[in-house]
């Protein structure tokens, strides 16, 4: 108990750090994932191939390796002086975007055929069909897997702590280095993560019931 009370500022900072990192990389992953899903169903072969390669490569790479690339290669060679937060966001966002892409793509597959056919027969182009007809209807089926993707993202953000980002894993590491009992630290950090993951799954369930249509 004392560990938490004595180090409340650190815990708060770590909690907020995890939240900020999760939110930022979730936004990046969402944008990238939807673009990649669009690429994967587009009529243009090179873009399709690029989307497929992106998903296959990123899904089969360990996240730690991506972090290593982000922290040792990107700043040295491309953009020197990028803050660790942005680097962690890039690694997490790109990794998660491959999962978002697959979720969105399978969501697109669940929209009834007639919808796209009707859109086409009204003379809509590919982007119009996707943007106005298919994606809005796919949203409903994409939400449940998206909730598990974001929960996985929250947990993956712990790896950023190993690369000296201020977040919950980092806090537990620092405190245990100072010699505080690891059991208690573990308990409190676990509680913090449980709060975040339960909030995410609750929010998504709320969203789901809001978007639900009586059939």
């Amino acid at each position, binding site marked *: 108990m004392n560990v938490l009370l004595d180090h409340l500022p650190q815990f708060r900072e770590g909690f907020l750090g995890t939240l900020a990192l999760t939110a930022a990389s979730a936004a990046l992953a969402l944008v990238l994932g939807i673009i990649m899903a669009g690429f994967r169903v587009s009529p243009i072969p090179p873009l399709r191939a690029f989307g497929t390669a992106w998903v296959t490569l990123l899904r089969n*790479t360990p996240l*730690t390796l991506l972090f290593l690339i982000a922290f*040792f290669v990107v700043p040295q060679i491309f953009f020197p002086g990028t803050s660790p937060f942005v680097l962690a966001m890039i690694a997490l966002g790109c990794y998660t975007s491959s999962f978002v892409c697959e979720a969105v793509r399978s969501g697109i597959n669940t929209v009834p055929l007639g919808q796209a056919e009707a859109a*086409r027969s009204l003379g809509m182009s590919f982007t119009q069909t996707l943007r106005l007809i298919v994606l809005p209807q796919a949203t409903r089926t994409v939400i449940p897997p998206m909730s598990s993707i974001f929960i996985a993202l929250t947990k993956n953000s712990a790896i950023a702590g*190993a690369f000296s980002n201020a977040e919950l894993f980092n806090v*537990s590491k620092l405190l245990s280095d100072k010699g505080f009992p690891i059991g208690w630290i573990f308990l409190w950090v676990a509680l913090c*993560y*449980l709060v975040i993951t*339960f909030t995410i*799954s609750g929010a998504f369930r709320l969203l789901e019931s809001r978007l639900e249509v009586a059939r």
Partner: protein
Amino acid sequence: MSASVLYDAPGPKARIRNRVYSVIGTLAVVGLIVFAVLRLNAKGQFAPEMWEIFNYAGVRTSIRDGVLTTLQVFAVASVLSLVFGVLLAVARLSDHKPVRWLATGFIELFRAIPLLITIYVLWVLFLTYRTDLGLTGDSTGFWALVIGLTVYNGSVQAEVLRAGINSVPRGQREAAYALGMSKTQVMTTVLIPQAVRAMLPTIISQLVVTLKDTSLGYVITYQELLFQLQQLASNTVVNDDNPYIPVIIVGGVIYIAMCLALSSLATWIERRGRRAKTGIPVADAAQPLAAADALDPVDQPGPEQAAGKTG
């Protein structure tokens, strides 16, 4: 919906437009790659000397050792996590309330906590009590990694298996009980074999996750492949620079090859299962993302839902 439903068969104008977009798209992708390669080349990462390091026996041995260590951790952790997963799944479906609660609590707890934190805490604990546990040298990191992976992946495998067991048609269980089989017999000879068959693609996909997660050993400075690569890159100096790019390219190819081999096995089994007419629906080969579906009040998810439907 196949992709072609989203757009018409291209006419003459659309064909020209698609070709223009193809060229632009290709140019953009190629341009990005060329930009990266040029920047790296300017930093001397593609200099022949950088790549010559792979000719040295020491470098090769350390990469080989890294691969072997990673595979060793993966082998032990996957076997243990499968055994543990079966036990947890059975416990969660048990008729005795305390056993069920205990298993549910355990699964929920360890699925909600980042694997990295579990591994780190185990590592610190093992380091603290290493003499009592009889651990020496490298084995502290090894067991922290293996047990962390086992606990987490075992919980996920348990959920996958439970979904599989629940997806077995009810008549199977009833028929088995009607034949006078005991609970254990029903579970081991009727339900689990069918559940494993239905969930095999998902189980193997989770093994891919286990393989990827062995790289977390890097954080607890255990000598697996990623740690070896990082050490290699930061201890070698060629032309006043560390050969990060060559090492990462080689290491990335090794990792991706190992994971792709395993996940294509899952996809192959999925296709094969779809073809067979046994009446057991086979789950997706998508990697189960864990966590959310366990929090769901829905008690009997089919194999499709349990797989998270990501593929």
